[in-house]
C-alpha cells in the first residue's frame, strides 16, 4: 500500500499534466480541473488522502472543503489506502443475467475477502461497482483502466494468477 509522503508533491511529469489540465478551461474556471486532477493524483498515490486533497486545493486555488465535497461524492476516488490492484466488480442486473453473481462469489472465495476489504498480502482490494457500460460482455470487472470481460471461473483464475506474480 502506498502511503502519501509528507509534504505531498506530484512527480514533475504529473505536475506538468496538472498544469496542462488547468489551462484547458476559461480564465477563472480552474475549478473545472478538479475531477481530472483527482484522477491524476490517484494514479500517483493509488488513493486520495486528505493531505493530497489539500495539495490539490492549493494547486487549483480553491478551498480544501470544495475538494472533500467532490472526492466523497464520486465513487471512483478511493478515500482509504488500497491494495496494489483494486478489482471493481460490476454487480448490476445485466451482468447478473450472464452469471455475474456466481462468478462474484467465486472471486470472493478465491481471494478470501468481501467487498471493501484488502487481501492480507496487500495485493488485491475488492470493490463493488454499478454498470460499467459493458453489459453485452459481462460478467465484467475493471482494474485501473483495464476491462476484464466475459469472465468465467477459468478466466478469473488466470487473471488472479497473472496479477499475483
Amino acid at each position, binding site marked *: 500500500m502506498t502511503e502519501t509522503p509528507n509534504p505531498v508533491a506530484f512527480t514533475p511529469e504529473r505536475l506538468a499534466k496538472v498544469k496542462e489540465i488547468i489551462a484547458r478551461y476559461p480564465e477563472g474556471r480552474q*475549478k473545472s480541473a478538479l475531477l481530472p486532477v483527482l484522477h491524476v493524483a490517484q494514479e500517483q498515490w493509488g488513493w486520495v488522502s486528505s493531505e493530497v486533497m489539500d495539495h490539490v486545493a492549493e494547486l487549483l486555488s480553491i478551498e480544501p472543503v470544495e475538494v472533500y465535497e467532490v472526492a466523497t461524492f464520486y465513487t471512483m476516488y478511493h478515500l482509504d489506502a488500497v491494495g496494489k490492484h483494486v478489482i471493481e466488480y460490476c454487480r448490476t442486473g445485466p451482468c447478473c443475467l450472464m452469471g455475474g453473481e456466481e462468478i462474484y462469489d467465486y472471486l470472493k472465495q478465491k481471494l478470501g475477502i468481501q467487498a471493501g476489504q484488502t487481501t492480507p498480502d496487500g495485493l488485491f482490494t475488492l470493490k463493488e461497482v454499478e454498470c460499467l457500460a459493458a453489459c453485452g460482455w459481462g460478467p465484467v470487472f475493471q482494474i485501473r483502466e483495464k476491462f476484464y470481460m466475459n469472465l468465467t471461473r477459468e478466466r478469473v483464475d488466470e487473471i488472479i494468477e497473472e496479477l499475483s506474480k
Partner: protein
Amino acid sequence: MAKKILTEHINVPGIETFEVYRKQGGYTAVEKAIKTMTPEEVVEEAKKSGIRGRGGAGFPMGMKWGFLAKPEGVPRYLVCNADESEPGTFKDHHLMKCIPHLLIEGMIVSSFALGANKSFIYVRGELMYVIRILEKAIEEAKANGFLGKNILGSGYDLELVVQPGGGAYICGEETALLESLEGKRGNPRNKPPFPAVKGLYQSPTVVNNVESISNMPWVINNGGDAYAAIGIGRSTGTKLISASGHIQKPGVYEIELGVSVDEFLNSDEYCGGIRKGHHLKALVAGGSSVPILPAHLITKTAAGEDRLMSYESLSDGGFATGTMLGSGGFIVFDETACIVRNTWNFSRFYHHESCGQCSPCREGTGWMEKVLHRIEHGHGSMHDIDLLVDVAKKIEGNTICPLGDAAAWPVASAIRHFRDEFEWHITNPHEASQPGAVFMGAVLA
C-alpha cells in the same frame, strides 16, 4: 443488409486512426460545412433530419439547437454527454472506442453550427482508456488542420476538451453533468433556467448524446432530407441498440428505426434469438429505467400489431402495455431469470445513485430497495406489494430530476406484469429465497 450510418466503416482495420478514417471519407462533412455552409444552414439540416436525441429522452436535436440563446459577447458551449451509465447501455462506449474520429468530426460540425469555440466531451471516468483514444484522435485532427485555430483557413477556431467524470450515474442528467464539469458534486439543477439559456459557466449551452452528435457528419454529407427518409414516421434514421442478457449474440447493433422487434430479437443479423433451449420471459427495451414487458407484449402490441423498434411503437399502449425506446439498452430475460431479484437489483442501483437532494427520491429509492430485498429474501408480506406501488407513485413526478421516475417505473411495471411472481415469493418464502430459485407458475399453468 439494413442501412448503416454510424457503423458502416467500424470494422475497417485501422479506422481509429486519422489516416484510415480520412480515406473512408472522414472529415468531408467538416470541409463541406465550414467551407460552403453557414452555421444556420447546418442547424437547418439537423432540423430537417428529424433526428431525436439518442441519450434517452428523444427530444428533436435540431429544435434543441434552435432554442440556444445567443446574447452578444457571451460564449456558447456544446457539451457531449458520454457519461453512459444507464444499466444495459454500452453503445457510446463501443462507438467511441472503435471509431473515435466519428464523434470528433460530429463535434466539429455541431460546434460550428452553434457558434461554440470550446466544446467538451464528458466521458464517464471509468472509461479512461477511451478518453485516451479520444485525446489521440483530437491530436491527429488538430495536426491535420481540422481543429484548433483558423480551421481550414476559415477563421473559425475550435478547441475540444475531453473531461473525465468521477463515477456517478446522476452525472448523465444534463444539469448534473454541467455541475460536475464545473468541478462540483453532480447535483441536478432546478429548471428553468434551461441550459440553452444558462448552462455551463452560466452561458448558453447545448448538451447532446454521443450517438446524436455522431450522426451529424452523415447528415451534412447527405442532407437532412436523406436522413429523414430512413426509418419510420417520426422515428427517423438509425439507432444503436445495446443488446444484452439471454440472447445468442449480445453486442451493439445499428438498426434502421422501424425494424420489427421480432426480427431484431430473432434474426441472425442481430441478436440471433434466445439462447439455445430457453424461451423469452421478459424484455427491458430501452435501458434499466423503462418499464419491463412480459413475453406476450414484446413482439406484438396489446392490439395485436407487430411491435417495431421505434419511439412510437415501443410506447404503444402507454405504461399499461407498452414501454419506451429510451437509450436503446435492450435487456433480454429468459425463463431462468427472477423478476423480483432483478427489480431489487435495479432498485439498489437507483438508491445508490440518487444524489439525495429531494426527499421523495432519496427516501423512496431506499425504501423500495429495502422492501424488495425482504421480498426476495423470503421475509415479505402481501402488504409489501401495495406498499411498493404506493412508494413508486409518490416518487413519480415529485422530484427535481427524472431519476426519481427512472427508479419508480421499473418497480411499478414489474408489479403490473409479474404480480404473481411477487406473490409467489411471499407465499413460498423458503423456496423463493434459495439461490437461483425462479417462479415457474406462469409457464406451468
